[in-house]
Structures are given as structure tokens and as C-alpha cells.
């Protein structure tokens, strides 16, 4: 029992409720949001170290023992993602302080962001399938409001599609829950895993597993991503950055949990399907990043490619590839947030969304230009930066499995990602400077600080991979040996 595990969920939600009463006092809102997220980072680092030292931490709510009550389970995988979430949210909020403007800040944007963070953390930590659904809904409801904030024709139009598709996905989730409760009579994830192993995952259970795959694929943007580019295009920059960095990752996390813990037996069917879907996702994503001139559209398709790539790690399903996937997820959260922030900043400076109307930004903003260069290399997976290690490990796993087509397409996609951003880099960042009166001449310091920090973090995560590796190995150890997770929850 470790009561601290509940903090990543309860702290943001509690503060969010308080903030609702301070609608007009922007200073208080900012200070409280800042300190909450900072505190969250500290708590999460402490919890991560505890998990490493003492093994998986479990909290049974209200003292009800595992299969009967709701449990929160913090293993290294969940904690790494929770920690990265809080870092991303913290930096995005610093960016938001200087870029959102009063109308947003008085429309409850900070409480909503905190509620969303609470929902995301809850989804990562929960050990109960129905509780996962509830945490998903907390996160989604906050995101529904965040995506519509600001109004405007295009935004409202795209929001409707986003909301309806997510309502439909949640409906499938409930159907899956009903089915799994009907067949196995429990909703605790560890208990489910135990029972699935006892009855030897038959065709019925595999069908239910595929139903869950549809649900989480919709949420993660795995193959069923048709809603994603439109929706991630419309919110304002810091919110879009959090969407791109965090929301799809929750879906990916759920897929990993589901198919390493609960349904790991029929790998021929489920994991092969995941592999095929991942490859298709990468291919369609590549068409997307090459085909558009709208900066926001290119960025959204970049998210899709990385979703496919991470899931190749699950397809290979070896210790190395899972380590790679965990590492790549962390890297991807940081770098996608940076990518969204930088593209948002370009649009903020120029007021244009198509990259061939923008030229020579580096002459005026040298730091920003070189930061874009670093971000591009990290995204493509060039060695000293953090993208490399994840890609390398996933690649090793795929070679062990002998999935040469997957590895070919996976690494080809890196080249295409590089190409898609190099286009922007050569045209908009490098190139002749054109004098345009409409362009802004300065980037506010408080916008640059979070972006530079993200840049440093990707460098640190790449060079200092040795520091993170023990935690990543611990995470992959639990993913490959589900009995560690089951024992921690059911036989404490």
C-alpha cells in the first residue's frame, strides 16, 4: 500500500476544482497551475525511484482487497509515462502563460488542462478496466472543451467530428467491458489476466480482445486515424501540443497493457494484426506528411507515423523491442510537444500556415532556427539525440523476430519524416530573408524558454540514456513477465 500513488490523479483534479472559483484572478490561476505541475513532477520522480527500489507499488482504494476494490498500480512503465506527462504539461503551460491571452485564461483553460492531466495520469495508473474507462472519459471531456475553446467556424466544425468519433469509441469500450465482464466475471486487470491464462484465451476472448483493439486504435490513431489530422489542427498552440504529445499516447499505453498483460496468448492473431495495422498507419502517415503544404497538417501526420512506429515494438514483442517502445514513447511525448510548439510559433510569427509562403526565419531568429534543426534530427532519430535509442531497440527486436518488411518500412518512415521537416527547414527557416511588415519581430522569452528546455531534454535523454535505461528495463521486464504485475496486485 502506498497512498502517494493517488496524487498524480487527485492533485490536478483537486486544484482544478479550486481554480474554477478564481475565474477572474489570472495571476492566482497561473501561480497555482505552475506550482501544481511542478509539485507533480517532484512527486512523480520520487514515485519512480520508489518503484525502482521497492518494486511495483499498489494502492487498494478504501482497503478493499484487489479483485473486489479498485486498485491503482504504479509500475515503471506507467510511472515513466506519468512523469513525462507532467514534464510536458509543465513546459506547455509555461508556453501558454505568454501565448494564450486573457479570453482563454478567463474561460477556465487552466482548470481544464489540469482535469485533462488528472484523467491521463489516472488512465496510466489504474489497475481496473472500468476505472480506465472513467479516467478516459475525464480526460476526453476536458479535451472536448479544450478543443472548442476560442470558437470560430473551422474549430467548431472539427470539434463536432472529434467529439462524435470519441463518443462512438467510448461506446465500443463499454460494449467490450460488458462482454469481458460477462465472460470472465471480473474487471480488475490483474485478475482478468489470471483468468484469461486459466481458461486459455479461446476464440470468444480473442474476439473481445479485437474489440478492445478497435477501441484503443480509435483513441490512439492506429490505422483508424481519419479524425486525427482535422482535430489536432484546430486548437491553439499549447493545447494542440498537449493533445499531440499526450492524448494518443494514452491509447497506445492501453494497447500495450491489454496485449502484454491480459491477452498475451494468441499472438498469432492479435499481435500480427497490430503489426499490419502499424505498418499501414506508417504508410498512410508518410503520404500525409509528404502531401500537404499546411504546416499544421504535416505535424498531425507526423503524430500518426510515430503511433505506427511505437506499435511495431509491440508487434515484435521481444524484451528489446518493448524497451525500445517504452523509450520511444517517452522521447515521442517530448519531441512531439516541441514540434507542435515550434510550428505554432512559426504560425504565430508569420500568421501564415503554408510553409512556402514563409522564408528565411533564421536570419531574424537564429536560436529558434537551430532549435528547429535539433528537433528535426531528434525526430528522425539521429544518434546523439533521444530518438535514436528507441528506434535502434525496436529495430533490434524486429530483426530478432525476422520481420524484415516491418523494419524496412519503419526505418524508411524516418527518412520521410526527415524529408517532410527538411522541406520546411530549407524553405522557411533557411533561405533568403524576405522583409514583411506583417511578421512579428520578436519571440517572447517565455515562449522560447520551454522550447529550449524541450530541446535540452531530448539531448539529455539521448546522451544520458544510461541514467534512464534501468527504469526502462524494469518497465520492459514487467511487460514481458505479466506474472510480476499479477502477483504485485493480487498477492501483496
Amino acid at each position, binding site marked *: 500500500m502506498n497512498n502517494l500513488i493517488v496524487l498524480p490523479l487527485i492533485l490536478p483534479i483537486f486544484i482544478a476544482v479550486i481554480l474554477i472559483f478564481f475565474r477572474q484572478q489570472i495571476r492566482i490561476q497561473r501561480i497555482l497551475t505552475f506550482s501544481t505541475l511542478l509539485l507533480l513532477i517532484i512527486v512523480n520522480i520520487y514515485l519512480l525511484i520508489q518503484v525502482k527500489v521497492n518494486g511495483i507499488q499498489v494502492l487498494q482504494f478504501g482497503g478493499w482487497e484487489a479483485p473486489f476494490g479498485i486498485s491503482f498500480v504504479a509500475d515503471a512503465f506507467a510511472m515513466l509515462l506519468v512523469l513525462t506527462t507532467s514534464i510536458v504539461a509543465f513546459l506547455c503551460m509555461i508556453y501558454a502563460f505568454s501565448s494564450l491571452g486573457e479570453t482563454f485564461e478567463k474561460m477556465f483553460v487552466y482548470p481544464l488542462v489540469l482535469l485533462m492531466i488528472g484523467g491521463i495520469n489516472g488512465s496510466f495508473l489504474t489497475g481496473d478496466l472500468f476505472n480506465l474507462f472513467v479516467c478516459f472519459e475525464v480526460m476526453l471531456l476536458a479535451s472536448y472543451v479544450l478543443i472548442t475553446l476560442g470558437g470560430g467556424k473551422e474549430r467548431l466544425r*472539427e470539434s463536432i467530428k472529434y467529439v*462524435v468519433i470519441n463518443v462512438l469509441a*467510448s461506446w465500443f469500450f463499454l460494449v467490450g467491458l*460488458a462482454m469481458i465482464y460477462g465472460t470472465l466475471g471480473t474487471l480488475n486487470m490483474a485478475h482478468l489476466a489470471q483468468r484469461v491464462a486459466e481458461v486459455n484465451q479461446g476464440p470468444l476472448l480473442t474476439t473481445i480482445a479485437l474489440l478492445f483493439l478497435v477501441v484503443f486504435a480509435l483513441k490512439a490513431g492506429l490505422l483508424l486515424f481519419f479524425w486525427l489530422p482535422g482535430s489536432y489542427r484546430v486548437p491553439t498552440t499549447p493545447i494542440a501540443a498537449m493533445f499531440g504529445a499526450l492524448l494518443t499516447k494514452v491509447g497506445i499505453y492501453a494497447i500495450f497493457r491489454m496485449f502484454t498483460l491480459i491477452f498475451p496468448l494468441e499472438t498469432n492473431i492479435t499481435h500480427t494484426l497490430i503489426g499490419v495495422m502499424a505498418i499501414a498507419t506508417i504508410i498512410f502517415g508518410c503520404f500525409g506528411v509528404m502531401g500537404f503544404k499546411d504546416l499544421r497538417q504535416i505535424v498531425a501526420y507526423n503524430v500518426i507515423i510515430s503511433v505506427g512506429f511505437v506499435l511495431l515494438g509491440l508487434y515484435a514483442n521481444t524484451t528489446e523491442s518493448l524497451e525500445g517502445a517504452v523509450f520511444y514513447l517517452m522521447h515521442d511525448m517530448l519531441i512531439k510537444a516541441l514540434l507542435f510548439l515550434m510550428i505554432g510559433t512559426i504560425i504565430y510569427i508569420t500568421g501564415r500556415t503554408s510553409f512556402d509562403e514563409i522564408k528565411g526565419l533564421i536570419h531574424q531568429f537564429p536560436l529558434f532556427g537551430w532549435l528547429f534543426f535539433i528537433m528535426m534530427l531528434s525526430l528522425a532519430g539521429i544518434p546523439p539525440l533521444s530518438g535514436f535509442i528507441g528506434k535502434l531497440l525496436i529495430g533490434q527486436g524486429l530483426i530478432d523476430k525476422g520481420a524484415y518488411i516491418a523494419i524496412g518500412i519503419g526505418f524508411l518512415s524516418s527518412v520521410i519524416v526527415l524529408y517532410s521537416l527538411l522541406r520546411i527547414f530549407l524553405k522557411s527557416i533557411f533561405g533568403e530573408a524576405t522583409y514583411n511588415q506583417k511578421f512579428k519581430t520578436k519571440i517572447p522569452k517565455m515562449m522560447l524558454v520551454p522550447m529550449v528546455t524541450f530541446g535540452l531534454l531530448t539531448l539529455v535523454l539521448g546522451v544520458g540514456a544510461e541514467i534512464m535505461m534501468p527504469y526502462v528495463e524494469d518497465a520492459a521486464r514487467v511487460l514481458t513477465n505479466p506474472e510480476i504485475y499479477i502477483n504485485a496486485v493480487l498477492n501483496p
Partner: protein
Amino acid sequence: METMMILIIGVLVVVATYLLLSKNIIRIILGTALLSHAVHLLILTIGEVKKGDVPLLKETPGPYTDALPQALILTAIVISFGVTSFILVLAYRAYAQNKTDDMEEMRGDEHE
């Protein structure tokens, strides 16, 4: 009783699917509301309808009905209620700004 419930669920899903596929936004929202009713009934049915007594230990002689599905439905109803009310407001705002409630006209092809 179970057969009856399953027929009702089937009809609800059919009607909801039809509504979801229409162009009018209000119909789509009604479709999502009906879908949620269908799944609530499904959860209820899967917990086995009226198997036994109220689960008050010692107060009533067993066997007891499983109370968990009802707790799940209660949570799901609250969530779907919240989402439906939000989406109604959103649809109204989108209608006011875009001057249309036809999803065909809300496609937004300018980026495709």
C-alpha cells in the same frame, strides 16, 4: 427475459446506427444517445436480469443479484448524460457559426 432484452438492444442499435449515418447533426446526437441506452441495457443483461434478491447480506435470504453491473451502468449514464449535453451545446454553437446543420456542408474540404 434475456431474449426480450437482446431484441430491444438490437432494435436500439439498428435505429441508432441509422441516425448516426444521417447528415443532420441533431439526428447524429440522438443516435449517440440511443447507442448509450443500448449499451446500458447490454451491461444489465450480461449481469443476468433478476437472478435473485437484493444484495443486502443477512437482511434477505440469498441467492443475490450481482450489483456491480448496475453500479457500472450508473456511472456510464452519468457520463453519457454529460457528454450528450455538451455535444448539444457544441452543435448549437457550430450551427450558429457555420449557418448549417448539415454534416455534408461541414466537411471542410479546403485542406484536402
